[in-house]
């Protein structure tokens, strides 16, 4: 009986954890993905100031924390389209590469969510 109560208690705690922090595991993965694949251009905090953000490039990497600009962009094209097909897919610079051959769908969805979190939009 005691064992059953313990199992039920643990299950409730786990369920509570998932309800209160639904994105906790995906965010952790997304942060690593962002750091590895995106931060070299967009910066670790998403401000568009990564180490590849050099003046010789014809366009600067997008500042993902610029809520107003990002809202305008996402109204035209979902972020996932840009992640999948790169800048060329949405009529923007080809410097932003397409990631659909590199990342899995789950990874791209996680990054899409992470960018939405960064821009608060």
């Amino acid at each position, binding site marked *: 009986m005691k064992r059953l109560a313990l199992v039920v208690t643990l299950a409730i705690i786990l369920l509570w954890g998932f309800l209160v922090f639904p994105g906790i595991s995906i965010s952790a993965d997304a942060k690593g993905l962002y750091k*590895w*694949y995106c931060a070299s251009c967009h910066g670790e905090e998403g401000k568009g100031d990564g180490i590849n953000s050099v003046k010789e490039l014809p366009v600067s990497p997008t500042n993902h924390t610029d809520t107003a600009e990002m809202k305008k962009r996402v109204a035209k094209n979902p972020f996932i389209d840009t992640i999948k097909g790169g800048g060329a897919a949405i009529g923007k610079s*080809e*410097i932003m*590469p397409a*990631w659909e051959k590199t990342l899995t769908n789950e990874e791209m969805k996680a990054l899409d969510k992470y960018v939405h979190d960064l821009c608060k939009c």
Partner: protein
Amino acid sequence: MRLCRLKGGDFLCKIKEGTMGRWPIITLTAIVFLFLWASPSLAQKEGEAIFKAKDCGSCHSISPPKFGSIEEKMNEKGPNLSYAGSKYKEEWLKKWLAKPENIHYTKYNTLSLKPDKHVAIPEKEAGEVAKYLSTLKDAKVVSGAVSSGGLMGGEKVKAKTLFDKKKACYACHTVKTTAGKLIGGRSGPDLSMAGERLNGDWVYSYLKAPDHFEPKGRSPVFALSDDEAKKIAAYVVSFK
């Protein structure tokens, strides 16, 4: 004159009694020939021993790359050398090991712009290690894919368009302009002198299957056509 005994019977030796005739010369020639024949493999063995003694393996794996996690990639300290003989030119390896200059602007596989300085080794040892590394080949590298003649005219323009615009390689890799100015991103290895360092066939094979050489690498998989990959590879190795 004396009689010399052989299996087939006796015959007269043409050498005088008390002298050894041509045998010392023949023996010496054979020794020299054997030494010259064996010396490259001796150098390789020496190189392998130096590689182990200097613990190069603590930063450079010589086992084929595994498909690990991003976290594992971030913890790597230096490039995988299991295909060094396919990737690098031996002469470049020899010079670079004796006098290394940073190829990466960052600490390996991080975003820190404070790269570690590679240890230098004496010239003779560098030559032996280069010889050893040159034996580490990858069967997936397509031999003869990229001609050594380079690109001419329109082909070069197409390659430049692919490199600069269509695939925007210089967004991550530094290159040199015709005026000699270094431009481009800093997250990937410097390509301004890539032709001194890399074999065109390896560049082509890498572009066709980056995951084979660097699973979970930062460089996007572009799914290039054969023609595109050959053009970009030939263009990259023209940088000198």
